[in-house]
Structure formats: structure tokens, C-alpha cells
């Protein structure tokens, strides 16, 4: 190869992507042409600089939690027959005192703990994975409220969340009750707003520790509002406070 190669060929050679016999011809040319050798050296330097231009970003714990929550582990495998028998014997032998201890531990779990987890599950399945279709699609709160009036057994009054656009809603079941589940877009984030009869303690503190999602609840005029999403808990709290 006498003529100098074009930049495309030189660049591909640096990436090890130049097929034979072009590669051998180009290497032969490089041995004789100082200008092209210098050009290749510059390309190698640039490649290294692009690779090292930024430190790697480690996934935040919240992102990891949110991703893990997209497909949570299923129920643990049922124990085998012999293990089941052993467990049954052990259970029979357990003292009444031990059973009452377990019962007291369950009773001491914070009220609404399981509820927050349930709300996050529904948020993931409906707002993020879109496993279930919307029953009503509308950005008009009045229209969505009207639709819910025929589908849940309590009056639904939707807040006007500042900076959020209503997308629509559907019904879902929480603690055995049919409740209203609505969706809002805040920039490019979708959040879920559950509107439901009072459940658990009133106005528990907002948290962003439920598998990486924030859950914020407020009770107004005997109706619970729960905002769930991947926005910071403080932002969720302010949104609810300003909207209700």
C-alpha cells in the first residue's frame, strides 16, 4: 500500500476491526510512513483518553433496590415431605408460651408496614411495568373522579399536584377493599396516587425506604391518599401537602 490510508481505515485498525488483507497492507504502509504512524499514535492516545475520561458511576442503593423490586423473588419452595413431617412434629412440640411470643411479635409490627409494601407492588406492576391496562385515560381530574364514582364505594376527590399531569386511573384491591389508583407524570417520572378508605395509622412518616421507592400517606376528611414513586420522600410529602 503506497497511498496513505484514510482515517476510517486507520481508526478501524486501532480498534482491531480492519479485516485481512487490508490490515496487513496497512501495517506494511505504517512501517514505511512516519506521518501515518504518528496519526495512529494520536488515535491510540485519543482512545485511551475517551476510555479514562470519567470515573465509573456506581449504582446507588436505591436504584439497585428499585431494580430488584421489578421482579421480586417468588414464594420459597415448599419443603420436601420428610422436612414437612419434621416441621409438623416440631410445631406440635412447640410450647404455648413460644406461640404467644410469636403472636406478640406480629402484633408489635408497625401498622401499615405491609400496606406500604403492597402499595409499592401495585405501583411497580401498574405504573412501571404496565401489566394491567388503565380503566380511564384522562388528564381531566373531574372526568376521572366521575368515573371512580361508579366504580368504588366512596367519593374520590383528586388533588391537584403541582407540576404533575394526570394520566388516568384504574381500580385495584388493597386490604380487601376496592380503591382508586391514579397515575401522574412528573417530568418523565410516573407516580401512583392511591385514594382509599382509612387504613392503618393516620399520616405515618413518609419513607423512601420501601425497596427504593418512596411512600407518602396523608389522611384528609376520612380518606387516605398514598403517593408512591421513585421521587425523593421529601418531594412526595411536599406534593401531597400542596395538592391536598
Amino acid at each position, binding site marked *: 500500500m503506497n497511498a496513505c490510508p484514510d482515517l476510517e481505515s486507520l481508526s478501524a485498525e486501532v480498534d482491531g*476491526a480492519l479485516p485481512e488483507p487490508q490490515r496487513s497492507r496497512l501495517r506494511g504502509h505504517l512501517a514505511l510512513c512516519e506521518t501515518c504512524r504518528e496519526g495512529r499514535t494520536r488515535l491510540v*492516545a485519543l482512545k*485511551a483518553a*475517551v476510555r479514562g*475520561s470519567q470515573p*465509573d458511576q456506581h449504582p*446507588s442503593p436505591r436504584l439497585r433496590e428499585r431494580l430488584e423490586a421489578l*421482579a421480586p423473588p417468588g414464594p420459597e419452595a415448599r419443603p420436601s415431605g420428610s422436612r414437612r413431617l419434621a416441621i409438623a412434629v416440631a410445631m406440635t412440640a412447640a410450647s404455648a408460651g413460644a406461640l404467644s411470643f410469636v403472636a406478640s411479635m406480629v402484633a408489635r409490627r408497625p401498622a401499615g408496614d405491609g400496606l406500604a409494601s403492597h402499595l409499592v407492588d401495585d405501583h411497580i406492576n401498574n405504573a412501571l411495568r404496565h401489566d394491567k391496562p388503565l380503566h380511564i385515560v384522562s388528564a381531566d381530574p373531574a372526568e376521572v373522579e366521575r368515573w371512580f364514582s361508579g366504580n368504588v364505594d366512596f367519593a374520590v376527590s383528586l388533588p391537584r399536584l403541582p407540576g404533575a399531569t394526570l394520566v388516568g386511573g384504574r381500580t385495584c384491591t388493597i386490604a380487601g377493599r376496592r380503591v382508586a389508583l391514579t397515575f401522574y407524570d412528573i417530568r418523565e417520572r410516573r407516580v401512583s396516587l392511591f385514594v382509599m378508605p382509612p387504613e392503618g395509622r393516620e399520616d405515618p412518616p413518609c419513607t423512601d425506604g420501601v425497596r427504593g421507592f418512596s411512600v407518602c400517606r396523608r389522611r384528609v376528611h376520612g380518606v387516605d391518599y398514598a403517593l408512591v414513586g421513585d421521587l425523593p420522600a421529601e418531594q412526595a410529602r411536599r406534593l401531597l401537602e400542596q395538592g391536598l
Partner: protein
Amino acid sequence: MTDREFLRLALAHLPRLLRFARRLCGDPDRAEDLVQETYIRALKVRRHLRDQGALLPWLLRVLHTRYLDETRTETRRLELLAAGPPALPPATADLERELLEGTLSAEVEAALLALPEDQRAAILLADVEGLSYEEIGQVLGCPVGTVRSRIARARARLFEALSATAHARRSHRGRSSP
């Protein structure tokens, strides 16, 4: 394969997806959002993945498509039409030395972000992710020849931008020295 099993395999590539997203969009928060949307989308369409061995390029493609959906503009198409054959600007010894010493990280990052999106994605996949041109073609949905051309154009543009920056810095130092 269950969703959970698929997710476990896909999460093994999380650091690389995040790295690509971060460099593609230049914003750590946006990169995390983009990655989350990628996994949601991947779980939905995972039946389209034919070869389990090609999971990484497939995930990168899902991510890139999602990114394009968010950012697609007319200017991108105009760039392709206006571009001529790529060539390296004249050599400057200082620039090569600085590149090799890694003292131009911020300038390189800025120059990468100023590239047309298709060129930026191609060069990042080659230089940072170490993908072959064939794999980059799978991610970007284009032939190998196009990959090769995009990477060469990206390098020519980066040299142009970095040469201009280095020249400006030298002029500034020359003026400010007594």
C-alpha cells in the same frame, strides 16, 4: 425462565449499562432513570431476545433506543447530511502528551457530549465498552460500515475540538505569563 431469573442475569450488566448511560447523557441522575426504564422495558420485551449470549448488546440496544426516544431531534439528521469525509487535523505534540497523561478528562467529556448522538454512542461502545464493530452494529441497528464511519467521524471531531481547546489554553497561558 422466570422474570426473576432473567432479571438476575440482566443485573450482572448493571454497572456497564449505567456507565454507558452516564456517558451518553452526561447526567448521573438521568442515567439512573434511563437504566431503570431500560430494565422495565427489557422485562416486558425479553421474549425478543433470541440469543442469551448476546444479552449485553441487547440490553444496550434497549437502553439506546429508549435514550433516542427521549432525545431525537431534527439536528441529528442534518448532521449526517452535512458531514464530509473525516480527516485528522494537524498534529500537536502537546495535545498528544496531554491525552496520554489524562490531564484533559473534563475537555474530553465535554467534547464527547458535543458530538452528534450517533457518533457519541458508537465511540463510547468501542472505546469504553470495548464492543466489536459487529456488536456495536447490533446495538445501534446499523451495518458495520456505518459503525466504522461514525467512529472515524467522531474521532476527527474530537481531535478538532480538543486541538481548539488546547490552542486556547496555550494562548491564555502565553498572555498571562509576565
